[in-house]
């Protein structure tokens, strides 16, 4: 799943480690989410979106899932 976490981090001048500590996961988890290797759980997705003051849909790209549902 594509996300805009990397861009948001750059915009907020945050390292992966800082974001990981803020949402309670390891740095490797943030790396995997950013590269699309791992899909965050609903709770983690909510924490990340909330951290940036956005909604889950704004941070995570659900277009693939919407295509599947058609």
């Amino acid at each position: 799943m594509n996300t805009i976490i990397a861009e948001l981090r750059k915009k907020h001048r945050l390292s992966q480690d800082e974001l990981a500590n803020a949402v309670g996961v390891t740095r490797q988890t943030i790396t995997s989410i950013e590269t699309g290797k791992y899909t965050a759980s609903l709770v983690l997705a909510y924490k990340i979106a909330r951290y940036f003051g956005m909604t889950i849909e704004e941070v995570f790209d659900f277009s693939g899932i919407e295509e599947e549902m058609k």
Partner: protein
Amino acid sequence: MTKADFRKKARNKLILYTVVAIITFALYICFEIVFRDMIDRHGTGGPSGGLIGIFCVSISQITKYAKVLKNEEAFKKLIIRENDEREKMITLKASEITLEIILVLLLIALFVSSVLNYTVFYTLLAATAVFVLIFGIVSSAVKKKY
């Protein structure tokens, strides 16, 4: 899990591993010193090795939990490491694949042993049956939970 819950869990683990370390050390002393002349070396070698292994693991866990309970930074890192959802998923996936590989290897060993040796065959058959039985029991217990 809250920080307080995790701290309580860490304290309980520290106590548990301390008890395990004391028991294994006492048993090792019994095997090696008290019963040394009563049991032949071949008989005590296996249990003694196992006890040393359990003792070493307990000591490493005691060190880990004692350290994190004193150091707030290490405590936060341990919470993250032990609750990280990706790490949990990796463990689950690895366990699932390992389970399948073990079952396939057991079936191959069963086939080979049925031709070569019946004692080995029945031992492996019992091991496979216990394996499948435990899997069934655990699966139904987990299904009830979710």
